[in-house]
């Protein structure tokens, strides 16, 4: 344990805070109006709905199920959105409802999918490769490491850290409590740290090896 007061590392001590997406009242109003137009069968409104949400849904689904199956799942999500709009009661935001459909379709798809030999090969390969030096393309390795997370961890990490949903929104989307969302995210990040530890600098020893005596 270091007894001296360390220099102030800006990254660790600066509170990042949750990534905030624009959820202004204007956006919510637009969604309400858009929903009403869709229910009236206006094809332009349905087109607009797709283009408003396509990147978010595609990004979420691709990062949960993988690129190979994402097109099929995204199509299913939007068909369910259009076919289910009349049943949307408005007790949550439209975006939350859409995310929930996307997550449920993705997790359902994973559950039904048979294990493909190439997936096993990929996992084995990552487990066996030697620790590389820091990889400047952290984003690429992060995307690859996502595939190795359990589906549940992947869903909460994508929703919170990539899509910028709050824990309250994650809990509503995933059908769990806020505390569960927080603990799942913490475990997901810990697992990602393990998978990417060779790419992150500097290296750090495991906490279990360093139980400091309480100060003060």
């Amino acid at each position: 344990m270091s007894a001296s007061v360390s220099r102030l590392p800006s990254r660790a001590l600066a509170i990042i805070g949750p990534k905030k997406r624009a959820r202004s009242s204007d956006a919510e109003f637009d969604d309400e109006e858009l929903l009403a137009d869709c229910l009236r069968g206006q094809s332009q409104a349905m087109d607009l709905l797709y283009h408003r949400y396509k990147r978010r849904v595609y990004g979420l689904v691709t990062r949960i199920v993988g690129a190979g199956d994402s097109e099929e799942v995204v199509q299913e999500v939007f068909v369910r959105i259009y076919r289910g709009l009349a049943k949307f009661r408005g007790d949550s935001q439209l975006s939350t409802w859409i995310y929930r459909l996307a997550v449920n379709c993705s997790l359902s798809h994973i559950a039904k999918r048979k294990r493909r030999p190439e997936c096993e090969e990929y996992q084995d390969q990552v487990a066996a490769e030697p620790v590389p030096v820091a990889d400047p393309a952290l984003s690429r390795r992060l995307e690859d490491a996502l595939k190795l997370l359990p589906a549940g961890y992947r869903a909460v990490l994508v929703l919170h850290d990539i899509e910028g949903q709050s824990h309250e929104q994650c809990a509503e989307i995933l059908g769990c409590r806020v505390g569960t969302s927080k603990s799942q995210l913490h475990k997901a990040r810990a697992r990602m740290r393990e998978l990417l530890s060779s790419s992150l600098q500097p290296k750090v020893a495991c906490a279990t090896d360093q139980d400091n005596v309480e100060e003060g």
Partner: protein
Amino acid sequence: MRCRDAQKLSSDYLDGELEPDASAAVRGHLRTCTDCEHYFAQEAELVEAAASLASLEPPDSIWEGIQARIARAEVQDARGGLLRRWLRRRTRTIALTGAAVLVAAAVLVIVSPWKHQEPSQRADSRSQEEPGKQSLQPTFAEERAAQLAESDRHYIESIAELRELVEEDRSAWGAEEAAAIDAQLASFHRNAIGQRLNLTSGAGASEPDTMGRATLYAGYRAEIAFLQSTLAGDFPERR
């Protein structure tokens, strides 16, 4: 604060979810523990990298695929919705008719005064009760037979019409789906034939085969439900 305790709070700390006191305590620990400082720094780097990931642009083929799926679903609605409503009406009629006939048959078995009479006695009693009329009025057994025949006809016609509609969908099925649907339909067909043969062979019996008739009609209803769900696209293999 121990390192283990501080690291448990890393996610909440970096997301600004901690109460001010807890946040200050974590910060105090980080000022004095290089390892935890680095642990937090790595997690912060991960979180920043995740937040910076580029949004993915979906291919145009997805929108085309969505429109095609919705079009197919609406065609199914047009075909299946009207038919389902019509068939529900027919099925209710069939079910009510069949149930009423079965109940009447059971009553006949239990309480009919003719059960133990000789045929000549029955003829005498009818001629005494309603002179001139007994030759025109059908017996209960004849009425029952007519109603059962009517129920049979309703069921068989409904099934035939549904099978025609299901057959029109065949081109949309995969090979596995088609094989599974054909196998199920063949099973229904075999069961119905077997049950009808049983009823025919026992037609001369003094008591109606109530259970046999109930089994036959249950099979018809199961086949109708299967054909309806296949038309609706709810067949498990098609999900």
